[in-house]
């Protein structure tokens, strides 16, 4: 197990270096002089220009600059936003809970619908239900989610008036952030209606963000389940006279869930990609919307830091999934 852990960890190092290189060169590849870009339209006088070059260390060799950058990153210093002058890490930390809250709701939504749908589709193979699930999941997988979001707003917010259009909570509530998760904070605040309002704001973004993972999880559960149901030990279980429910829910499901867990881990990337679009559509104040705004305002330190942080989080989750997988399935450890 230790050997497996160490090999897996050693794979992380080059990926980390690659990501810091990408983030580092991000700013340097932008056409034009970074100081002039920061100064904007008004321009800057040569003395100040030279002073700023020195201040940011841009007058030194690129390799040295990279070394300095790595040193800073390892100390948790990701630079300051050019617009707000706030440290990038602090801005990220303030907005990240909103994205996590949304992503968690989305993945729970996807699991609650996707796993049962996949199981039933596999058990009733080639039935109308099976074809229905496969059709719907292929559609979900092909869905441009930015359009899906607009359609849901059109139907539920505009036509029916059931759900709010944007934001995390109605403006009349002011909730002091404790955990950063508004569903929890609104309950803690004890304010009447606040929790209801947060939930109402969560529904549509959850569906939009959860659609692609839902499609993928349903398909994966179905195919894993089909594979397991064809195994000899399932026939043995049936031959022992166990009820159909017990065979499926206890014997088959346990083994079928192993590949599904891997797929769930891989959804983190999908969720962050989706969060960028979902947050833009619903004006959800999370890191996705923050990054898009950073691009529009040419706030490169924010973009640089944000990309690095999101990349690191995905990397960490992938590592976690692999290790969990190694624990659940000893065959992986040995290979």
């Amino acid at each position, binding site marked *: 197990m230790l050997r497996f852990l160490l090999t897996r960890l050693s*794979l992380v190092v*080059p*990926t980390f270096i*690659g*990501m810091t290189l*990408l983030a580092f060169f*991000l700013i340097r*590849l*932008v*056409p034009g002089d970074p100081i002039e870009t920061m100064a904007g339209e008004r321009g800057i006088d040569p003395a100040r220009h030279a002073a700023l070059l020195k201040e940011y260390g841009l007058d030194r060799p690129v390799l040295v600059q990279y070394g300095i950058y790595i040193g800073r990153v390892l100390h948790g210093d990701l630079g300051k936003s050019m617009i707000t002058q706030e440290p990038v890490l602090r801005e990220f930390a303030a907005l990240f809970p909103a994205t996590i809250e949304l992503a968690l709701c989305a993945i729970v939504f996807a699991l609650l619908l996707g796993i049962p749908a996949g199981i039933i589709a596999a058990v009733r193979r080639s039935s109308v239900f099976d074809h229905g699930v496969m059709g719907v999941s*292929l*559609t979900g*997988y*092909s*869905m*441009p989610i*930015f*359009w*899906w979001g*607009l*359609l849901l*707003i*059109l139907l539920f917010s*505009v036509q029916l008036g059931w759900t709010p259009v944007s934001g995390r909570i109605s403006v009349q509530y002011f909730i002091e952030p404790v955990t950063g998760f508004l569903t929890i904070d609104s309950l803690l605040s004890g304010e009447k209606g606040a929790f209801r309002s947060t939930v109402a704001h969560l529904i549509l973004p959850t569906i939009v963000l959860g659609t692609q993972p839902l499609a993928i999880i349903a398909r994966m559960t179905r*195919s894993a389940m*089909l*594979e397991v149901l064809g195994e000899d030990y399932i026939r043995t279980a049936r031959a022992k006279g166990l009820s159909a429910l017990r065979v499926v829910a206890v014997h088959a499901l346990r083994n079928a869930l192993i590949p599904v867990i891997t797929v769930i881990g891989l959804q983190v*990337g*999908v969720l*962050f*990609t989706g969060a*960028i*679009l979902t947050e*833009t559509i619903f004006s959800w104040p999370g890191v996705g919307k923050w*990054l*898009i705004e950073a*691009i*529009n305002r040419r706030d*490169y330190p924010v*973009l640089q830091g944000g*990309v690095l942080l*999101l*990349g690191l989080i*995905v*990397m960490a989750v*992938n590592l976690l999934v692999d290790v969990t997988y190694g624990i659940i399935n000893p065959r992986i450890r040995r290979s």
Partner: protein
Amino acid sequence: MAGLLFVIAILLVAAFANVLAPYPPDLTDNAVFLKPPAWQAGGSWAYPLGTDAIGRDMLSRLIFGARLSLLIGIAVVALAIVVGIALGLVAGFFRGVTEIAIMRLMDVILTLPSLLLAIVIVAILGPGLMNAMLAVAVVVLPHYVRITRAAVITETSKDYVTAARACGAGRLRLMLSEVLPNCAAPLIVQASLGVSTAILDAAALGFLGLGAQPPASEWGTMLADAREFVLRAWWVVTFPGLMILLTVLAFNLLGDGLRDALDPKLKR
């Protein structure tokens, strides 16, 4: 089958866009702002799917949009497949440090959320259709590299490669005319599925204002333009997205079909 038919249909629509479309895609008509589709009150058959906020015919824009979207999908996949095969072959043949360098780079690309990486590339290069296509091509590249490398490694251990090598075939010949043709099946499947990813990602970039720029009739860009009219004119929002969905769905169906046909092992 349905996928193949729709793909052929959309290819024909794109090819004959100038014949099929009733108006040029950029023609504005001051008299008809946000006219609803023909079957709704206030609509007319002159504009079967209505008009947008500056009086352009929706149907014509959608038809010309097919051209743009297919171009994006095919160009992106072509670029990714050429570079991907080259890198995959090199990684599979030369092994060692070269292989490690290439595969680790691909791991970095795969680790970052796809759209995020595309956004970063566009942020560096500047928004626009060409840069968006380039960005999406980089994002989908690892799939082709991995598939090629895996196929090359399986194939090179087979007898026919040893035989060719014994006959004195050079490295380039081994790579291109012996091994590569035998790696084609998974690449074709991936390419077909890749077109759908490319169209979807490019449309997402267009929607975020980082892809094709207005007044281009790219479906994602059209949706971005239409966002502010979502409350007043459902048709400007509904149709472009529907076209994206149907096209992507068709390519996915085609890819699934090709996989079943070319790789019977995977068929269940």
